């Protein structure tokens, strides 16, 4: 059901006149409707839903590094620590802030804050958890983007239209997973060898993992999955016979910060 724009504006206007404000007004006049409009709608049957499983039992430091390198190479992700030309060397204090990352690693207590405790299994505490955009089912980054530059595709991929991004960085504030990076300066001088056929980005736009939408369109697996030697599993969640579904059935998996309600679609086997 939900409500359309006209109805929304009508209620907002009327309630302002009455001195009511915000969500409370909607609760009073149309109870339950705002939640209904905010919740993710069920998808039609027969639609693809891409998802990824990260098997931490198979993933070691070296494999994680290989995956990151593969992703960053084929997407021309800059490395601000390694300028092509020595004259572009950046002062160390900005390197952290400028960092652009699509795929990266963190320890358990950073990847799953609140789930760690002082006495936890030491081996797990020190695993290099591979993190990327979760392609959430209910993505806050999409909701806050004022230009619709970030949008959710029907196959679940949360993608970006770089032509449209105005660099307001609302989405970075909205994403609770730190999956997005801002281009504080022209990234080209820091892309070691440009991968032909994929664009770079410009100063002033935000970027993130795209679930390799451009490779999926050509029936190829994501670059990180290909480089992972089986530690990453990718596939269609709506297909009962797919490898992700099979893996999810056979292993217990966790996801990042589920309590925030974004419904992440990257699963971790610990």
């Amino acid at each position: 059901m939900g409500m359309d724009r006209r109805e929304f504006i009508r209620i907002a206007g009327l309630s302002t006149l009455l001195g009511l404000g915000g969500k409370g007004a909607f609760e009073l006049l149309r109870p339950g409707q705002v939640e209904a409009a905010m919740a993710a709608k069920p998808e039609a049957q027969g639609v693809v839903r891409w998802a990824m499983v990260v098997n931490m039992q198979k993933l070691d430091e070296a494999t994680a590094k290989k995956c990151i390198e593969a992703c960053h190479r084929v997407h021309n992700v800059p490395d601000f620590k390694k300028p092509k030309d020595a004259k572009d060397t950046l002062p160390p204090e900005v390197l952290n802030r400028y960092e652009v990352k699509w795929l990266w690693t963190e320890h358990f207590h950073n990847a799953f804050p609140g789930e760690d405790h002082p006495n936890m299994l030491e081996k797990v505490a020190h695993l290099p958890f591979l993190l990327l955009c979760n392609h959430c089912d209910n993505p806050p980054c999409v909701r806050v983007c004022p230009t619709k530059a970030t949008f959710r595709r029907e196959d679940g991929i949360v993608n970006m239209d770089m032509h449209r991004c105005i660099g307001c960085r609302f989405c970075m504030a909205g994403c609770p997973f730190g999956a997005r990076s801002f281009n504080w300066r022209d990234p080209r001088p820091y892309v070691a060898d440009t991968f032909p056929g994929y664009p770079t980005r410009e100063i002033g736009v935000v970027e993130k993992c795209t679930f390799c939408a451009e490779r999926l369109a050509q029936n190829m697996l994501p670059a990180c999955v290909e480089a992972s030697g089986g530690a990453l599993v990718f596939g269609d969640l709506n297909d009962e016979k797919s490898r992700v579904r099979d893996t999810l059935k056979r292993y217990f998996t966790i996801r990042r910060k589920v309590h925030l309600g974004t419904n992440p679609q990257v699963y971790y086997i610990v």
Partner: protein
Amino acid sequence: MGEKYKNEFGVFAERPQVEKKYYNAKYIFTGLAVFLILLILPLAPNLGKTVPPPQRQLDTPVIQKMAEKDRQCIMPTDWMRANHMQMLVDWRDKVVRTNEKGAPNGRDFVSPDGKKYLASLTNTCMDCHSNKEKFCDQCHNYVAVAPNCWGCHLQEGKKLAEAK
């Protein structure tokens, strides 16, 4: 006797006689002259010059390798000359917004003669026209437009599958 002079304040004996005089003519005309010179100055160097018409070159390796009858852009040349910008914008929307609800879809472009192409500036257009300076820039500079494609899109491309 001067004639009676009337305005909204009443009737007066005579129309006031004011001496006709051009005040500050020296400054006004000097100022005008300076303004005109400044206005014309940037245009002056090009006065009487003819700018050579753009020289687009089509002798890139990929085009030369083609048989004569295959040397055909994805659309007729005249159409491309007039509409390539709109076509690229359409491609952009179709490719980037693929699978978005209600969006136009797809990375394929089918030309009128039935050939299928990947809708991609870098991978398709720049494959043949690998000489941006001698092709794109020729006309763009001539008509003084600066498309901002090249801030992100690379001049050289290969199809993704090949580049593996």
